[in-house]
């Protein structure tokens, strides 16, 4: 792009004799229409594209997303619980195009050339950018659990990317006999949506309690601790004491192998027969990130904690689950919050400005029953050690909160969902 940013141009304009400058016939307006490509239309990418245009409507913003429709992971557990149907969690990019004038390319970005500043797609397009934002989400470490590969996921769904996998898991729950066992196997940290497996256990238990009350949910966990643990366990004791059982990693919970043909999972050398197996495998940054050399040896993308620019390649920003964002969890809310900060940083940089304050929020609700919700929240700032939560703020809701609070948090959970999806896609 033209190196003369708008602001510098204007400063220059201000320092020149304004009328004379405007009257000079040789003076053309600089072409400051920077090209920004955003890869991935989930919580991070769609928010960033949207907010780039909010900060500077003159920018040329292109969103590359392979799917026509986006099914959110948030509230997919409530779909499994029978509270909503798939339509509720389905969103599209129509308004981002019509209202915010973002160009949508329905294609899969396959790799980048950080030197030429181009993105290649699987359909053979090559697109050049001034700034690139990658929000590729996660991919799975296939075979990290022995036998768990893409084919196995069609029998033992992960349902950790919403859509067909959600539908498959729901179908299996519907077809399961009363008295069956549903295994949920959450991975070790870090992974997408830390409280997600436990909300899922709650929502599946809610469904089973009504329709197949002799059934069980067995959580075979790779970890010994999990997000909002006390609040979850208190609620399980109250609502699902005979349904949910949690086995921590150190007590035989860690799943090391699966056998989809015989519907068994192996934990602590013990083969457990199961009716439905929801295997949530270990994860890493989405495909394009590691194929483009943007990841560290753990498989995640190191970024400048203020701008989310990759520490590996210039002018490439990585946001959302794929990025290493200090103490922020890999959540939809966090990704969206990062998308806004990244958008501001890019716009400021293009205009030779600086963004003074960096501030992020994460608020996350989990449903235990349709009328009982719990939450965790944090406000994040930049410190010498990267992004950290503000001390004395945030945290999980109080353990002794009255029933009215739990009820309000269930109501607010849905309110949050409606707000954030309107903010991103509306």
């Amino acid at each position, binding site marked *: 792009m033209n190196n003369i940013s708008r602001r510098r141009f204007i400063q220059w304009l201000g320092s020149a004799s*304004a009328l004379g400058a405007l009257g000079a016939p040789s003076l053309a307006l600089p072409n400051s229409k920077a090209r920004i490509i955003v890869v991935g239309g989930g919580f991070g990418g769609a928010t960033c594209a949207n907010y780039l245009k909010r900060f500077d409507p003159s920018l040329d913003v292109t969103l590359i997303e392979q799917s026509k429709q986006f099914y959110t992971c948030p509230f997919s557990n409530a779909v499994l619980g029978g509270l909503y149907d798939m339509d509720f969690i389905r969103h599209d990019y129509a308004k981002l195009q019509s209202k915010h004038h973002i160009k949508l390319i329905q294609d899969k970005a396959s790799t980048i050339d950080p030197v030429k500043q181009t993105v290649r797609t699987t359909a053979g397009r090559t697109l050049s950018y001034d700034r690139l934002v990658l929000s590729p989400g996660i991919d799975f470490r296939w075979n990290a659990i022995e036998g768990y590969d893409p084919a196995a996921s069609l029998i033992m769904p992960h349902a950790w990317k919403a859509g067909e996998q959600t539908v498959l898991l729901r179908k299996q729950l519907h077809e399961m006999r009363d008295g069956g066992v549903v295994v949920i196997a959450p991975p070790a940290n870090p992974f997408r949506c830390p409280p997600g497996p436990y909300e899922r256990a709650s929502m599946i238990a809610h469904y089973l309690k009504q329709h197949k009350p002799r059934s069980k949910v067995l959580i075979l966990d790779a970890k010994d601790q999990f997000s909002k643990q006390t609040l979850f366990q208190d609620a399980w004791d109250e609502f699902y004491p005979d349904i949910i059982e949690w086995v921590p990693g150190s007590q035989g919970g860690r799943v090391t192998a699966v056998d989809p043909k015989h519907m068994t999972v192996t934990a602590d050398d013990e083969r457990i027969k199961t009716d439905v197996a929801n295997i949530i495998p270990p994860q890493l940054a989405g495909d394009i990130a590691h194929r483009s050399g943007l990841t560290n040896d753990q498989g995640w993308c190191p970024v400048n904690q203020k701008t989310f620019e990759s520490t590996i390649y210039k002018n490439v920003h990585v946001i959302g689950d794929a990025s290493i964002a200090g103490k922020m969890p890999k959540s939809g809310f966090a990704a969206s919050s990062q998308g806004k900060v990244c958008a501001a940083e890019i716009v400021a940089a293009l205009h030779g400005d600086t963004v003074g304050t960096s501030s992020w929020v994460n608020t996350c609700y989990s449903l235990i029953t349709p009328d009982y919700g719990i939450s965790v929240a944090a406000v994040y700032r930049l410190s010498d050690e990267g992004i950290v939560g*503000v001390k004395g703020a945030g945290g999980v809701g109080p353990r002794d909160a009255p029933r009215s609070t739990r009820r309000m948090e269930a109501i607010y959970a849905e309110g949050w969902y409606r707000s954030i999806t309107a903010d991103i896609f509306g």
Partner: protein
Amino acid sequence: MKQKPWISLAAFTTCAALILPATALATDYRPAMLANPCAGCHGPDGDSPGSIPSLKGLTADEIASSMKAYKADRRKGTVMNRIAKGYTDEEIDLMAGYFSRKP
């Protein structure tokens, strides 16, 4: 786009030619940076489509006094007591001003 941090170039050049010094253009991102995450629960520009209270239509004073009451636990909420403690009073005023200026 009713409100944007960037004055359109065409409009600006006209103004600049007449009166404004160049320094007037520096954009203050602070209020937007503090307030943008709020939209995640309170909706775009604080206009909530669901059960969470809207900030739209409230005065700066109403928003700020509410936030400060949550921060000091003088008002009991759900997540807001925990979130409000993440901001200084000055930041709360900036955020409140930001939302009150939304049409």
